[in-house]
């Protein structure tokens, strides 16, 4: 038992080391760019999982928080006249707090509904945010977009600060997810997922718990949205409040394993590079969407519980069988 734990810890350190050193291993901007987006989705999927995976409330509107965080940071920087460079990163937590406030209001309302209605209400909120970004032109610039300050970094170096910013947020998300899973709060969330009425009956403060999970999840997504906006330097309502971003994080969680700690990470590491690569290489032939959808369908039909639960079940079954056959016992 002890050595397995050491092994896992070593593995973890190795993964972390690779993640930290990646820009040194592959410094060209094509690779670091993909790394920025991949780590971004690791963070997004992990954050979404805190709500969707632990409580079972499927939000398809998290792209709204992504976009809101993006606009919050962009507007803060513009109003305060912050110049491009490292300084804007200091305002990312502020964008997170603003997103948390919004999420508290949205959550208070949306969590009155359950199941399918909740899914659709989150979609409606996302579109409302998108329309606000479009229509409040004097604030957001509307369809003409909002410019972020342009950092002075040239060449391949440009991507690296963004990579570390995204990585830091992803690690914060993972730490939060890990802590929640082990806490009493997390147990409460899982009880809500299994049967909300029963959880209420045994004294879980379901309303407060759900709202807290929702706010944590949204705040993380909002901060990541802020860094994204700064990275692409120009944001538009339809590109940051993009339903595709919202559904991508959900898909990654399902692919890796809903409600697990590492599932969202694995899902993001597989899907985002695959998606960028497919679009880059097959986009012109227009078959990109068909390929993407085929992969998508195969995964859901053959691994509906995600990679990590399916794999660990397989391992557990092997393990259970091995000693049994050795002992020659019959079940």
């Amino acid at each position, binding site marked *: 038992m002890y050595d397995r734990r050491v092994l896992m810890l070593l593995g973890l350190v190795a993964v972390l080391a690779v993640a930290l050193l990646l820009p040194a291993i592959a410094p060209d901007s094509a690779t670091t760019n993909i790394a920025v987006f991949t780590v971004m989705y690791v963070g997004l999927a992990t954050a979404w999982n805190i709500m969707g995976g632990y409580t079972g409330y499927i939000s398809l509107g998290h792209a709204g928080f992504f976009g809101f965080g993006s606009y919050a940071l962009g507007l803060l920087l513009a109003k305060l006249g912050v110049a491009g460079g490292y300084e804007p990163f200091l305002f990312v937590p502020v964008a997170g707090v603003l997103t948390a406030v919004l999420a508290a209001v949205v959550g208070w309302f949306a969590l*009155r509904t359950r199941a399918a*209605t909740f899914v659709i*209400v989150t979609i409606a909120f996302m579109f409302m945010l998108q329309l606000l970004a479009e229509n409040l032109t004097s604030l957001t610039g509307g369809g003409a977009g909002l410019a972020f300050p342009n950092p002075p970094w040239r060449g391949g170096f440009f991507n690296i600060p963004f990579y570390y910013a995204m990585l830091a947020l992803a690690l914060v998300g993972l730490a939060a997810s890990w802590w929640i899973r082990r806490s009493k709060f997390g147990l409460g969330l899982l009880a809500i997922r299994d049967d909300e009425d029963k959880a209420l009956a045994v004294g879980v403060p379901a309303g407060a718990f759900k709202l807290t999970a929702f706010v944590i999840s949204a705040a993380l997504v909002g901060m990541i949205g802020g860094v994204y906006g700064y990275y692409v330097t120009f944001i538009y309502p339809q590109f940051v409040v993009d339903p595709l971003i919202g559904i991508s994080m959900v898909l990654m969680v399902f692919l890796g394993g809903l409600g697990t700690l590492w599932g969202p990470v694995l899902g993001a590491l597989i899907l985002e590079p695959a998606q960028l690569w497919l679009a880059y290489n097959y986009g012109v032939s227009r078959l990109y969407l068909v390929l993407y959808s085929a992969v998508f369908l195969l995964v859901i039909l053959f691994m509906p519980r995600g990679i990590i639960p399916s794999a660990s079940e397989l391992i557990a079954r092997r393990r259970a069988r091995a000693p049994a056959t050795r002992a020659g016992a019959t079940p």
Partner: protein
Amino acid sequence: MILVLEAAVLGVLTGGVYALMASGLTLIFGVMRIINVGHGALVVLGAYLSFVLWRNLNIDPFVSLVVTMPVMFVLGVILQVVFIRPLKADREALSVLVTYALALGIEGLLGFFFTSNYVQITAWYDTASFPIGNFRITYVYIYGFLLCLAILGAIFLMLYRTTFGGAIRATMLNRTAAQLVGIDVDRVSAVAFGIGMATAAAGGVVFGITNTFNPGSHYDLISRLLTIIVLGGLGSLRGAIIAALIMLVIEDITAVLISPVWADFVFFVVLVVVLLVRPQGLFGLRVRERL
């Protein structure tokens, strides 16, 4: 004032089309408890089928429904059997992903065959109009509205006057109980999905005449359709029809009275306000929903 009245008339007429599309979506939800996020893509697929028949064989788009509705029905049954039926655990969440994947696949295939250029079905009645006072109504809206009335009427007849309709209603009310009394729920589900797709084909024709469209047009459609069925109450056919009319009338009036930029926004505000008062929607039953 005249302008508001015009907008209201237009809202009712286009609302009819949305009612038809939304009724298929809410029927599917009612029977299977799944949200078919691919419904918008199916409407666009229906529009393209009619577009091909019209462009290549010169068949009138309304007449082409004789072909496209049965084709889409069969396709719907196949899709349900292959992709929806195998889902067991986490059905509601997984079905969203599966139907979304289907939407992407359809969009990709349509893009492959038709490119992403905007197309539109044209017919003499898409610009011909008749006057009512100062205002003129285009024939296509009237024809579209009548078509929707006819199809919705047929659906209601089927639901309330046939044995099979009874089975569908029983399944909508309580899936497990329906199974217990010997209803083949799987068969009912497949047929309901087929009916949903056939209505999508019909909605697609009117959509394809009144809008320019390309394979990516489904995103906008589905967000509206989902809002409509939640407003009406998930699984309520009556609710979907009334909600569609209310939404489109309010939207069109907002467009002329305040500004078109706020029309879509009001659409969602109405939903939020209604849900604050009635979380189950206008006609939804307060059921204990579980994931």
